[in-house]
């Protein structure tokens, strides 16, 4: 019955209005107001979004109307706004879930319709459904709790999301695995996402994003084994292949191309590179695994537990060469052997023999064995084609720089999951390192010295470390000099500055809701300095404060990993900034020394009263630091531009990276700090984003909020500075620091004229006001293209221009030393 009616409506001959007939009739019966709303928006959705969406919308409203006419009206009015926020590909899921809930618990529909757009892209449909079911159940008890659950704000929501993802996600363990890999090979490797594959490019270890093979702790064991093997290639020298120590073929080894690794050069020497590469991979894996088993009994255990499953079901190919490689693979992986005929057995003999003693070989010996054994297997392939040149010779080529995109046909069915040696995946930076290492070795050879591949690589890494440190030191010196020119501010406390009131709601300004913020918080009114009338305009600007949403940790994790040396050094620098002054504490019962004045007084008192006072010691206490720091980030769209230093790094990323480095260091030494951002559009809408308040812990969630910082619209610096100042003044501390990180171009072309001189003068006035109220502002401009007015704008309070993230921490430490002590 139902199927028949569906066919009827899907028929192309039916006029469009007929599809609307059923919901229209239902709505008309239930609630005429809902019907009117539906009629108003239906066409808008069809024209603005799509026919399918309009149809789903009608179905949903009609369905709700059968249960509750009033609710149907609400749904009819609000859905059009929400649907616009749902990504195109997920709109089907959105309506499906809403319809399901409309059937089971319509009263939760309003909350769900509002929160689902932000959720819908974070999970697959099945998980999302289960999550929504939990949220709807909570709704029966409390709709506030359901809302915070569905916004993923509550702890219950975090736990639920975790529980929904069975298996292990790389994002959750990548840091542990990175450290694990480093412990094994003693190099600065990183574990990175490998788009579903596990491999190593000789510098880093790439792993699949998700492992769900067993559904228990063995999933982590899979990651562990893959990491151990990936790091094992580095630990046991796979990438230290040295062709000078491998007997060359008749034609000699091919000349090294620029940026080419030794392994790539080696594979290039073979007619059938895929074949050579597979055989090399098998033997090298056997070697690395044997070494791992010998070195780490625990890995031997894990390999036994998960190893065979990793390889998956194996085929039994008939073609002689493929059968030979498969037989070799099964032997290497310790699986059920594949029977082979005499011819294949003969061809495989030298390789099999090497396989059995793989643990005792080194990579150069493996390369030699593979060169020798390759001919036998290639012979099988050639004979199978009746002496005709094999088709694969031309097409089966390894992907090399310069000939990307050619088909790559492997003679071996790939294992379901297994680490691979993939020198071709190395990035440009890594390739430069290869070249540099090769150059070092050539130089050494010219001097008549021996330098192994491993030593050369280590030297290159060492050089990089030194260069980085040197750069940082230079930055410190430059900053020191720059600061000498700017004295710390002083001045009396006058003029409280900020007024505060309730402003009209954001909706009235027509600004769409920002997906990066949790909820719009309070609004504040501030005055603004108008240079043309030389006076303040009172109650002129509305600052709307909202909290950034938690998001992805990957940005922060990556920065923390990459910049960990900088973070560590900065932390030490901060720690070293201990005040050298001392305060003398008197009148103690125990202390460093006797306080002579008190002893004399005491002696006199004692003689008179017979009671000798014992509070006669004094002690010098070192002074402590008592400081609160706020960071105020410019999030205007101009920060989306690349920094003038070149490269693709955007100003906003440099700001964020520097901020993370500093926040980690400040967190380590325990000083109070807060992180804000600002943007906006027009004087009615200066958006003030809170990533971390003073009272918030610097935890993963705070880090995620910083990760959410992104460029928005305009920047009205003056109002943001006034608001940050106000917040800073509420913080009990002896010293208050405000760092403004911007691109130095205050600009807000909303509905009035906040640019050029007007904007600069207001910014300057806001900074001056802040200083008068006892806040030390300091402006850091990320872009050195900043024009000459910077000095006029920031000159009174001290500023600097930087172009590299490395310089910023140095700057901040120095400001700290001058101001915070």
């Amino acid at each position: 019955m139902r199927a028949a009616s569906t066919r009827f409506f899907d028929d192309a001959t039916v006029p469009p209005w007929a599809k609307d007939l059923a919901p229209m009739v239902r709505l008309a019966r239930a609630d005429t107001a809902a019907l009117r709303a539906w009629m108003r928006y239906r066409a808008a959705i069809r024209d603005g979004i799509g026919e399918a969406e309009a149809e789903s919308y009608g179905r949903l409203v009609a369905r709700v109307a059968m249960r509750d006419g009033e609710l149907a009206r609400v749904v009819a009015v609000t859905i059009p706004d929400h649907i616009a926020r749902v990504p195109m590909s997920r709109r089907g899921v959105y309506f499906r879930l809403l319809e399901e809930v409309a059937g089971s618990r319509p009263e939760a529909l309003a909350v769900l319709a509002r929160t689902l757009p932000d959720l819908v892209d974070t999970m697959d449909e099945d998980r999302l459904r289960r999550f929504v079911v939990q949220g709807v159940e909570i709704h029966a008890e409390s709709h506030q709790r359901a809302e915070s659950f569905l916004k993923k704000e509550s702890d219950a929501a975090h736990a639920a999301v975790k529980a929904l993802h069975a298996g292990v996600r790389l994002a959750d363990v990548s840091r542990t695995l990175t450290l694990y890999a480093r412990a094994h090979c003693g190099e600065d490797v990183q574990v990175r996402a490998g788009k579903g594959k596990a491999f190593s490019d000789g510098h880093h270890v790439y792993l699949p994003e998700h492992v769900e093979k067993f559904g228990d702790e063995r999933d982590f064991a899979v990651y562990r084994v893959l990491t151990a093997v990936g790091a094992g290639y580095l630990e046991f020298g796979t990438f230290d292949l040295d062709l000078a120590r491998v007997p060359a073929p008749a034609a000699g080894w091919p000349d090294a191309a620029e940026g080419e690794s030794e392994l790539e050069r080696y594979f290039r020497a073979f007619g059938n590179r895929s074949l050579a590469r597979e055989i090399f991979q098998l033997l090298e894996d056997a070697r690395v695994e044997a070494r791992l088993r010998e070195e780490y009994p625990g890995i031997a255990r894990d390999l036994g537990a998960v190893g065979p499953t990793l390889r998956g079901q194996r085929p039994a190919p008939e073609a002689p060469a493929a059968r030979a490689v498969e037989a070799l693979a099964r032997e290497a992986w310790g699986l059920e052997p594949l029977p082979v005929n005499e011819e294949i057995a003969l061809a495989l003999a030298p390789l099999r023999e090497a396989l059995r003693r793989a643990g005792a070989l080194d990579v150069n010996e493996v390369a030699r064995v593979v060169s020798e054994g390759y001919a036998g297997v290639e012979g099988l392939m050639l004979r199978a084609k009746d002496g005709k040149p094999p088709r694969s010779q031309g097409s089966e080529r390894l992907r090399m720089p310069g000939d990307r995109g050619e088909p790559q046909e492997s003679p071996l069915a790939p294992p379901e999951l297994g680490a691979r040696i993939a020198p071709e995946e190395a990035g440009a930076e890594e390739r430069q390192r290869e070249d540099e290492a090769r150059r070092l070795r050539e130089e050494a050879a010219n001097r008549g010295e021996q330098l192994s591949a491993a030593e050369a690589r280590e030297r290159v890494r060492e050089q990089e470390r030194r260069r980085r440190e040197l750069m940082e030191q230079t930055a410190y010196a430059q900053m020191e000099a720059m600061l000498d020119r700017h004295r710390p501010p002083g001045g009396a406390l006058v003029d409280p500055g900020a007024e505060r009131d309730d402003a009209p709601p954001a909706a009235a300004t027509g600004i769409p809701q920002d997906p990066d913020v949790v909820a719009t918080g309070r609004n504040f009114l501030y005055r603004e300095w108008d240079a043309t009338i030389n006076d303040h305009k009172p109650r002129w600007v509305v600052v709307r404060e909202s909290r950034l949403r938690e998001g992805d940790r990957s940005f922060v994790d990556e920065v923390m990993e990459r910049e960990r040396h900088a973070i560590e050094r900065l932390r030490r620098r901060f720690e070293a900034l201990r005040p050298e002054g001392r305060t003398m504490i008197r009148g103690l019962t125990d202390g460093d020394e006797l306080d002579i004045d008190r002893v004399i007084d005491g002696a006199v008192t004692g003689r008179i009263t017979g009671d000798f006072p014992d509070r006669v010691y004094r002690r010098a206490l070192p002074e402590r630091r008592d400081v609160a720091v706020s960071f105020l980030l410019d999030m205007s769209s101009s920060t989306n531009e690349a920094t003038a230093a070149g490269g693709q790094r955007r100003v906003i990323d440099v700001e964020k990276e520097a901020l993370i480095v500093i926040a980690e260091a400040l967190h380590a030494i325990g000083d109070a700090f807060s992180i804000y951002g600002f943007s906006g559009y027009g004087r009615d809408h200066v958006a003030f984003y809170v990533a971390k308040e003073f009272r918030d812990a610097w935890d993963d969630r705070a880090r995620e909020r910083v990760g959410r910082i992104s460029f928005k619209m305009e920047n009205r610096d003056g109002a943001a500075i006034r608001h940050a100042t106000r917040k800073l003044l509420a913080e009990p501390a002896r010293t208050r620091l405000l760092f403004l990180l911007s691109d130095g171009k205050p600009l807000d072309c909303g509905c009035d004229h906040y640019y050029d001189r007007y904007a600069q003068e207001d910014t300057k006035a806001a900074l001056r006001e802040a200083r008068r109220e006892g806040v030390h502002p300091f402006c850091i401009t990320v872009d050195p293209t900043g024009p000459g007015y910077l000095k006029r704008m920031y000159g009174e309070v001290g500023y600097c221009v930087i172009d590299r993230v490395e310089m910023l921490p140095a700057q901040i430490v120095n400001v700290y030393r001058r101001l915070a002590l």
Partner: protein
Amino acid sequence: MRQLTPSVEDYTIHREPFYRAVADEIDIFENAWKARLPVLLKGPTGCGKTRFVSHMAHRLGRPMVTVACHEDLSASDLLGRYLLTGDETVWVDGPLTTAVRHGAIVYLDEVVEARKDTLVVIHPLTDDRRILPIDRLATVLEAPAEFMMVVSYNPGYQSVLKELKPSTRQRFLSVDFRYPPPDIEREIVQRESCLDAERAGRLVKIGEKIRNLTDRGLEEGVSTRLLVYCGKLLAQGVEPRSACRAAFTRTLTDDRDLGRTIDEIVADYF
């Protein structure tokens, strides 16, 4: 006015502390003592610096006075101070004064932790004058031939800014301490914790791997002392993974990811 000096017996080492030499450190120390030169020991935490000094004190038959330095350490903490007893004022010698009076070996542990203005009181003792002026007593003590000054510091985690002043540093002969090579370290762990060679060897390997994380996540690698602690737990029959968690994971870090990494390294061996 009375003066109190703690008794020499308090500082005498009666039983020989075990020490396994790694390089020429014993020879250097002995000859420095004979030549009346002060010595600076550099090295990470728990690699045997303190043990070495007490071993040498016993070997040379001298009492040993140890001062653990910290940032609140003041000159009077080292030299001594007046105390009041009833209505009488008594001078009590500080550890440095005590050591000079007894001709002891004085050991300032983690010397950079002390503030620079405190450290200058050791300067006259560490050049050829070998004297200790105490202005509150209005005296100058002359150090006897047996007196020796030894200081230690850990260059690993102190910052560039917290290094010893060159004027302090250049008064010492320096001996570098590192974690001992694997064979010797195994021997030490075995001997100190009464553990079998096989398990002691595994502990040393775990130590090696964890030390690979120094500056790559960990501030400082695992010390020989911690390996010995863990060995002692193992020797008493504690389950290896929980022993290692107590000795390594929880001690070395509060970072959960890093802690898990250390657990995984332990699982590589036990």
